[in-house]
């Protein structure tokens, strides 16, 4: 009985230590989005994203302030925050999930898939996002492109400017990770 307990504790110890982590922190994270409207194209860039990626178990999260999206047209930026994203009510956008198909030790450029919860405008959706990860020395470069439908996140575009704003937005993600 005592032995069994001992084995149990020992086993638990192994499980715990075996759960090694190789954490990476994004150093130059950039998220941009683009939407081609009839009248004018809309694009913005956020360079203040934070992200952690665990290369062993594939867990990933990133977080940003919606207000940090920079537009070349500042009036558009105000409208984006005030009318569409309601940034005072919903200041953050985030993703939390797991990347599958990545093998850190294999190295090179790999096609991967992230599955998890994307939160925008206070609405959380489970999504599947394709992308690539390239291992270069000790750094990881992650890239991804995906499309967001405004409707899915309850982002309403008033009819009167409807022709100016497409109903979907293409998001590009470019993260450079370094070991934590």
């Amino acid at each position: 009985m005592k032995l069994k307990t001992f084995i149990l504790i020992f086993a638990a110890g192994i499980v715990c230590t075996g759960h090694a982590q190789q954490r990476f922190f994004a150093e130059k994270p950039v998220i941009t989005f683009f939407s081609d409207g009839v009248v004018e194209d809309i694009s913005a860039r956020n360079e203040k994203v934070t992200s952690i990626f665990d290369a062993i178990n594939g867990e990933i999260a990133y977080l940003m302030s919606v207000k940090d999206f920079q537009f070349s047209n500042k009036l558009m930026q105000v409208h984006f925050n005030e009318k569409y994203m309601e940034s005072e009510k919903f200041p953050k956008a985030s993703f939390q999930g797991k990347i599958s198909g990545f093998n850190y030790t294999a190295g090179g450029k790999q096609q991967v898939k992230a599955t998890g919860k994307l939160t925008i405008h206070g609405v959380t959706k489970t999504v599947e996002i394709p992308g690539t990860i390239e291992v270069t020395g000790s750094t990881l470069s992650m890239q991804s492109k995906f499309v967001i439908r405004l409707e899915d996140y309850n982002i309403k575009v008033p009819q009167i400017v409807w022709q100016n704003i497409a109903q979907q937005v293409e998001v590009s993600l470019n993260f450079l990770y370094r070991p934590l």
Partner: protein
Amino acid sequence: MKKILLLFLLSPCVVMAQNDLLGELEKSSEKETEYTFATFKGTRLGNGHTVETKNAGSLEFIFGHRFGAINGGVYEMFGLDQAYVRLGLDYGITDRLSVSIGRNSTDKTMDGYLKYKLLRQQSGVKNFPLTVTALGGLAYKLSPKNNSDVSADFENIDRLSYTGQLLIARKFTPNFSLQLMPTIVHKNIVESYEENNQVALGLGGRIKVTRSLALTSEYYFNFNAPDNDLLLEDQRQYDSFTLGIDIETGGHVFQLLLTNAIGLTERAFITETRDDFFGGDIHLGFNVTRTFQLKKNK
């Protein structure tokens, strides 16, 4: 029992496996100072200014239009036969400093303003409850055409008036903003019953009804207004009052107004409003703005 023990022993592992990476990011994210934005939709509240300035490199064209008084009756087509217009340009030199020029058909006035955001409402690392903007303005009357039409010793400098104003606003909620406007208007020459320096206090606000539509109001109380009981009807002066609706569509802001003022410079609407809003002398008016981004921000 053993099972419970096993669970208990393994629990740290389970916790570890459920890494809350997002939670960690949230915890480590630095608290930043958040500046309040869009206290008002436009740079004008009704006739006068708001705390808002143009962003660096953006140019705004403002077309301000006031019709005649609605109580002019059918003969005046309820005021629609008359028009008082101001054409203006506002430009953001920096995000906090704007310059503005305009021409108002009322008294054929040329005007110019400098507007600087002194303090910004902010929360986060530093908190400040108000946005304070300073405004300085000049207005030059081009009418009457000849100095000699007024009097023998009337000079060009007498056509000039000055405005100094502090715009103090707070965005209480995303839908409700309030503004106070202590103002001084100096006129180089005045009628015998008027004072050269006139001090006024404005009060205004907006309530957002939908994301694109807001109700606004603006009132200026003139402390140095002459006593109307001693004056002829066309010399009487009333405080300017405005009720409006802001409608925003992309790069445009439409402001539909009901007001008793027809002039769009502070001299005109604070010190020379001849119509009584509450006596029914109400003018329909609108401001239409279009913003152009001249300089691209990096």
